């Protein structure tokens, strides 16, 4: 085959262009640190890469739900613990009651119990992020409302409490197959009415003022404390389960991230070496092209 000037020029330009394109490709991969930037870069790996990325997104969503659930459960745990403490304080206060107590001393003790009742109501109506923790799913309004009236000593105090939340628990998806309850309805914390924590405390206050026996009410308070103990254990166990689930997700994410990285990310060291090679190759092609263009008989003559 005759080799003509244009064939040589075309071949030379083709080599220079190809070499430059390879160099540019390598530089792009170094700059973006990604070996797959679009589906056509590696169609066979696309589905696996998207699956890994999806899994990371989904997992991040579940982790956020878990964190949010744990915060809410901790707030509930703290509220339950506070109610327990108030019951304990009430029981300690009742111990001071005896037949020789003056009316003034009884009124003072009743006032102390009233303050504990108010504190319990406050705990049961506590909010997290603007929502009532112990309202079930009816979290837009305070779940416990109270009515006040005069006591035998003439002071106006809380006479009854009403739970207006619902018995449903809020829940959140924490995995593809599982939803977890993220709260405790108020009636579960306070107990069923009549005879709830607030009714018991109000009864104790009245007994102190009346001088009537408190043994049955103290038993009721003990029963509430046992129930709250059990509830705290349940909440603790739920928090612990979610914490473990979160750790498992984090661990699974590490593996998924490794898979994603192996599919998508550039091996930087390898790419630096490849870029160096391509730079040398490009310079060699340029130099060869420059030298070749002088190798003509007409130039020689």
């Amino acid at each position: 085959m005759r080799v003509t000037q244009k064939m040589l020029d075309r071949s030379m330009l083709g080599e220079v262009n190809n070499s430059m394109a390879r160099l540019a490709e390598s530089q792009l991969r170094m700059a973006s640190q990604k070996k797959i930037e679009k589906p056509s870069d590696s169609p066979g790996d696309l589905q696996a890469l998207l699956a890994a990325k999806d899994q990371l997104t989904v997992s991040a969503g579940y982790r956020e739900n878990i964190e949010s659930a744990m915060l809410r459960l901790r707030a509930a745990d703290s509220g339950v613990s506070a109610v327990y403490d108030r019951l304990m304080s009430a029981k300690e206060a009742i111990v001071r009651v005896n037949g020789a107590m003056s009316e003034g001393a009884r009124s003072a003790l009743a006032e102390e119990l009233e303050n504990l009742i108010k504190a319990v109501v406050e705990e049961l109506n506590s909010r997290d992020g603007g929502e009532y923790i112990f309202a079930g799913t009816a979290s837009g309004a305070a779940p416990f409302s109270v009515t006040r009236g005069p006591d035998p000593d003439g002071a106006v105090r809380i006479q009854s409490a009403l739970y207006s939340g619902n018995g449903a628990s809020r829940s959140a998806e924490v995995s593809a197959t599982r939803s977890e309850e993220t709260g405790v309805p108020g009636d579960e914390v306070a107990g069923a009415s009549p005879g709830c924590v607030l009714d018991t405390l109000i009864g104790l206050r009245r007994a102190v003022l009346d001088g009537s026996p408190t043994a049955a009410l103290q038993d009721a308070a003990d029963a509430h404390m046992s129930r709250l103990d059990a509830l705290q254990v349940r909440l603790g166990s739920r928090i612990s389960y979610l914490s473990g689930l979160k750790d498992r997700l984090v661990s699974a994410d590490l593996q998924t991230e490794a898979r994603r990285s192996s599919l998508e990310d550039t091996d930087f060291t390898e790419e630096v070496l490849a870029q160096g090679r391509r730079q040398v190759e490009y310079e060699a092609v340029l130099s060869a092209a420059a030298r070749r263009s002088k190798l003509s008989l007409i130039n020689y003559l």
Partner: protein
Amino acid sequence: MSSNFFGIEIGLNALRSFKTAQEVLGNNISNVSTPGYVRREAVLQPVGTPDSLTGGVTVENIRRLCDGFAQSRARAAAGAARQEEYLRDIMLEAEQYLNPLAEGGLYSRLGEFWSSLQQLSANPADGALREAVVAGAENVARSLNDLSGQYSSMLAGAGRDAESAVSQINSRLAEVAALNRQIQEAEASGLQANSLRDQRDQAVDFISGYMDVSVYESAEGFQVASGGQVLVFGKNALPIAAELSGVPALELKFSAAGNGRELNLGAGKLVGMREAVAGIEELRAGIQKLSDALSSTAAGSLNAVHRAGFTLAGNPSGESLFTLDSSGLLRVNPLVSANPSLLAASASPNQGDGDNATALAGALKSPLADSMAPAEFISSLASALGLRAAELEKSADRAGLLETAAVNRVESMSGVSLDEETAKLLELQTSYAAAAKFISVANNMLDELLAIIR
């Protein structure tokens, strides 16, 4: 009997012939880089009969050196290469818009929307999270509409490309017809028409990049046919036309403008354009299918789940989340968009109930279009597109290599080699000097003869 001056005449003919041959070589060297130039060669022939070569040598004609078969192969290869390149470029552009790996694309917007629904399910009364869900839904709608708009504009671009190509092809078809006439006239009056032939070949080469042409040379000049239709016959050219139309899917058709007959093109850039339009239409239909699925109110759809839910105020929603406007664009329900508290995140009138947000997130991951979830549908479209684009990159490279090989074959016959031309030039210079010497010797002999006679 020969004249006494026949020796000088032989030398003179040789001088003239070698001078012409040197001029032809000079012309070749000057045009070494001229596009479409076909090298020439002076054809020398003896003067006189074989028994009595009394006239020496003369230039019979100046021949263009070209291989018709190689030329037709090169034209076919060029058409295939332009077709693959055009299709590759369009598919790579389409891929950029749909790229599920790009930040801010439809795929990532769907992921963000799902995440925002998940977050809302945990805190359904949170105003900021409601805003985030509405923003996520609006981003999904905007991305889908943008994608559809980008594909529509690519279709319009392909239509404009086709019109521009057809206009250039028509101009070249007219040029071939005009050159047929000029060549015929020049050669009838005994002139060389090699430059005109170069121009005509170049015009046909240009056309063959766009459409597969068959060229037949008759006494009338080139007859150019494509897609079952003769487009140039002698001095007459038949222009072609492009039309982008069709319902519901657009189609690009090419026809002969004179008789309206559709051209059945086999290869070339015009075929690439036609296939590109079909490919983009397919993508646009896919995007529309997803818009339809998101705006559907069928059981199990996103809208059906939303309509069954309750607003923040505890009222039954009854409203769709996504709707299609009069121009077919996907929109977030303007009521929900203006007031995110109307987002139906609850499955009951209680505002702490985020079950409907969970159900919405679930619906987004459930089959909606072609038995696939929206993100899955997009990834499947992108995967098929990526596969096609990657294959086109390879086939365009292959077609480019085949074209280079075919052009090199043409070049090996028609191209100018400076080394070869220089060697020939040296040979002709020596021959020219020899002819000059021959005249000088003949002249001396004649002088000697005259001196003897005197």
